[in-house]
């Protein structure tokens, strides 16, 4: 009992805080959305570091439903921090759009709670509960601007397709249960070792992967992404692009390494196909986009493809590479959305790439920052994005997946086009309109992200430590 409590403490803290805040926000007299947001951000930051502060309380809880280890701790830290950043970004936006409600913060907390359960799930049911908890919160967040037709449509699309993916997931889980007689990851693994990869197990595994591929918006389960990214309020999109992707990626990793670790021959092909499709669709789809949020949607599809590349290797280095890549991607993408949120004219937000034209003259600082981020996304050394791709692709090469890496590099080159087009628009086109001055919080987060992608600042001190964390996280997964 005490062990359960100690390993479950972060989630418990989150759940209690969310519930208390829900009650606290229910005030008839005055709007408490601002104070709730600040408290939520504090809660998220505390949650992020709790695993490390409590000296990584590892072990199972709830009779093996959850298994907390270095892997989960690492992910919780990243998820918590990125959610906190997204929440901070939302402050000004919602105030300006007069949408500010305290439920937003609470829903974010619940979504993070879901993700937290996802990343420590050690049982198909626990995994499902986590995913659904997260997804339900996200559906509402997507449609948070309920007076907007676009947002409602986005939320509805997301919900319907999400339900379909949940169906796939549950169907896969039931197949696995039917053929192995267990929902527990380790028992499944032992059972597969006994029977070998039977048809039912493979089918169940593919269904599970398809359900999860929807969550990371890997092609061909990506179709919702551009519509939802475009329709949702921008801070929500920023949130979608970061934490949920990482959580889903983590649970895929865990599934592949723990229960299905011995049948890599069966899932490697599937992951490779998902990776290739995602990279190609992401790279090509973005070329035609004029809306920067849609563009970022395709960009995230392509980046999920890159993240799957090291995973296909199925090695410790591969998992580490995925974690490093995802972390760097999240840092960058939060910066990008922090800048998109600064694209505000007097009469509201704009989202077209062409609105950025001549930004270098009207707002050189912002143009410089976005250029840094784009260059990092392209993956040009010495920016951080380059190292992300380096860590992601080297394990795949070592595992003999050379042609997959070649596809990834070609996709990188194609996607360089639309990142460069943004840079070109900012620096070489004639300025048309000037954005109004962005609020301080947004700028601070953008600047922090920009500083982080310039690796001269973090290479000496941070990178060693960060790599160490990612490495111990990957090791923990294989030790399980």
């Amino acid at each position, binding site marked *: 009992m005490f062990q359960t409590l100690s390993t479950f403490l972060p989630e418990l803290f989150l759940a209690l805080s969310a519930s208390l805040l829900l009650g606290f926000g229910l005030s008839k007299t005055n709007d408490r959305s601002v104070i709730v947001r600040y408290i939520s951000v504090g809660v998220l930051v505390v949650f992020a570091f709790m695993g490390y502060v409590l000296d990584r309380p590892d072990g199972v809880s709830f009779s093996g439903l959850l298994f907390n280890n270095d892997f989960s701790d690492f992910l919780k830290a990243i998820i918590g921090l990125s959610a906190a950043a997204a929440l901070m970004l939302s402050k000004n936006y919602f105030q300006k759009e007069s949408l500010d409600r305290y439920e937003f913060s609470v829903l974010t907390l619940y979504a993070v709670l879901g993700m937290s359960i996802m990343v420590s799930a050690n049982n198909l049911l626990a995994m499902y509960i986590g995913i659904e908890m997260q997804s339900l919160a996200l559906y509402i967040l997507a449609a948070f601007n309920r007076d907007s037709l676009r947002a409602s449509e986005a939320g509805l*699309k997301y919900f319907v*397709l999400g339900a379909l993916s949940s169906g796939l997931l549950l169907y896969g889980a039931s197949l696995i249960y039917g053929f192995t007689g267990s929902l527990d990851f380790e028992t499944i693994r032992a059972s597969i070792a006994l029977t070998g990869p039977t048809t039912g197990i493979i089918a169940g595994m593919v269904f599970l992967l398809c359900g999860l591929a929807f969550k990371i918006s890997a092609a061909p389960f990506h179709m919702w992404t*551009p519509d939802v990214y475009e329709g949702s309020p921008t801070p929500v999109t920023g949130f979608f692009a970061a934490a949920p992707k990482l959580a889903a990626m983590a649970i895929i990793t865990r599934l592949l390494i723990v229960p299905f670790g011995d049948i890599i021959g069966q899932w490697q092909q599937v992951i490779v*196909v998902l990776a290739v499709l995602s990279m190609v669709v992401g790279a090509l789809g*973005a070329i035609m986009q004029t809306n920067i949020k849609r563009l970022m949607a395709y960009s995230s599809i392509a980046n999920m493809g890159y993240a799957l590349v090291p995973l296909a290797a199925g090695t410790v280095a591969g998992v580490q590479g995925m974690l490093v890549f995802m972390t760097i991607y999240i840092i960058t993408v939060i910066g990008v959305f922090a800048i998109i949120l600064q694209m505000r004219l007097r009469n509201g937000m704009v989202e077209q790439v062409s609105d950025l034209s001549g930004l270098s003259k009207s707002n050189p600082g912002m143009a410089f920052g976005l250029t840094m981020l784009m260059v990092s996304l392209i993956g040009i050394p010495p920016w951080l994005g380059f190292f992300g791709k380096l860590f992601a692709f080297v394990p795949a090469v070592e595992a003999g997946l050379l042609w997959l890496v070649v596809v990834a590099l070609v996709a990188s080159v194609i996607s360089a086009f639309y990142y460069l087009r943004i840079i070109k628009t900012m620096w070489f086109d004639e300025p048309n309109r000037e954005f109004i001055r962005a609020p301080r919080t947004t700028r601070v987060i953008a600047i922090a992200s920009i500083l982080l992608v310039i690796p001269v600042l973090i290479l000496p001190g941070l990178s060693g430590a960060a790599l160490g964390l990612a490495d111990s996280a990957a090791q923990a997964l294989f030790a399980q």
Partner: protein
Amino acid sequence: MYQLIVFAPLLGAIIAGVAGTRFGSQILSATLSKIITTGLLFLSAILSWVVFMGVGFGDSPDQTIQLFRWMEVGDMKADWALKIDTLTAVMLVVVNSVSALVHLYSWGYMSDDKYQPRFFAYLSLFTFAMLMLVTSDNFIQLFFGWEGVGLASYLLIGYYYKKPSANAAAIKAFVTNRVGDVGLALGIMTIFLMFGSVNFDVVFAALEGGADTTLPFLGGEFNAIELIAFLLFIGAMGKSAQFVLHVWLPDAMEGPTPVSALIHAATMVTAGVFLVCRAHPIFELAPFTSGFITTVGAFTALFAASVALVQNDIKRVIAYSTCSQLGYMFFAAGVGAYNAAMFHLFTHAFFKALLFLCAGSVIHALHHEQDMRKMGGIWRKVPWTYGAMIIGTLAITGIGIPGSYTWGFAGFFSKDAIIEAAYSARGSSDAAIFAFWIGITAALMTSFYSWRLIFMTFHGKFRGDQHTLDHAHESPWNMRAPLVLLSLGAIFAGAIFHKYFMKDYGAFWHGALPGVAGDHHAAISNTLYAAAETTASDATYGKYESKGFIDWLLFRPVHGYPFWVLLLPLVASVTGFVIAYFMYIRGSVQAKIDHIRETGGSPLYNFLLNKWYIDELYDATVVRGTRKLGDLFWKVGDVRIIDGLGPNGVAKFASGAAKRVSKFQTGYLYHYAFVMLLGVAFLILVAFRGTTGG
């Protein structure tokens, strides 16, 4: 002191270039920049004379001062070093004296230019590069200086960078020099390949051992030494504007006139001659290449002189004259009279710089008019310039008393020395006898075009508009002073230094240039006097018996030559003067101009006026050929094949595919769901294929 000589100009260039120009923020005023560069150059020039006196006449030892090691890659070792011997000392004097005077002259000439510090910085930079070239103790540093002067030349030709013709000329000079530089670079590489070193002393000491080696080159086997000599000479041809690679020099006159005087007359273009003299041990062992040098030199002398006969641009006449005089120097070097070549280089620097600066003074007086057809009769307006120009012309046409060796202008001594050297070498080389007669012919032409220039510019009636004539004025003192000093050089340099350069070669050169004939050399002599003694003891002239006055006059041996050999250049020169006099003083210049305008001129006239159509020939063959080849690579190779199948093809494919991908994105929920289910089916297929197939 040596370091100071070499680095003072660099210091000036850096100060004026960085602090004086708008390149940085302009810290120094233009006047201060000019004072610094000019002052440092005069310091350098004075010290150069001190060194020259010390090394040539005093007892300063020949020495090599190692500054520091530049590169060390395996056996490839090159130092920054200052090699001081008489050859270097002569070059130091020539370069620094002319450069200092040109700096001073530019005060006046460039006075209404807006970017003077830049100009002076370039001039000083050039001087430094030239000094690096002449003080080098190895081929690598020489190459550095070689390219440095090329760069400075490029910058200065294109100094008026807003003028398209100046840019074109600068590029032409640069590209033509590249052709030569490839030869020089290949030569240096071959030297390193053969001897494992690029140091002059080491290489020259090892030459004997390599005399019989052959090397494969361009599919043939060649004697290694011949090959090296030939490649080095190609480099020299480019820099010294010898026939085939001469095309850049006349166009280089687009640069300001002081630049023409310094770079394209007195110093840089003589670098090729210097190279041949510096590397004379190599050329002595290469009889075939030496013959080739003689032929090319002689032909250039004739060719350039013939073109100069009809040019109308005052600077172009002098430019072709330079080209022609460089031909003289080369054929002297080709027949082995390296000291005669250096002597002519030395005197030529004075009188050719003088001529250019005079031309500049005329141009300055007439508001940048360069066409001689629009000049005439201005000697009263510019008496100083006129006097100096006459002195320069007397010097270049070689007026003096044959056989006296005391009375004569500078060019008289050095040019006659060359012609006599060619005559002495007649016995062993066909090229030498060719060169001798060409030398005489070219001397006649030289005289004609030089006097034609004087007559068209200073005599007769003024043919420009009256306004220009009214405003014509003599140049300020800072332009006249260099003219006076150079005039002194043009008058006395030959008479004073003749015996040191030519007669007491042992004491003066002490080993920098060969004193006695090498056994391997094609020419019978390496010095005029060594040859003269041989010839004097010859049976024909040793037992001279007079057969009447005419015979006495022509065949009496003087200094070991039949007297007609000494007389002939002077006769040619005077003939040229007489023809020019009758054509341009007795005849009407205006009538000739009108005649040519009406009839278009005779074919021969046009042939010469268009410089033998060499530029057109190059344009039709090399330029257009290269352009076609470039077009081929560009339009077919790059655009169609590389771009078409590579980037553009992929991009086209990508944008096509992008459209298709976007088409899938219909926005309908059931489409999305359908695609998802298709995906599931496909992935299950993939997974099972992995099981059964894998």
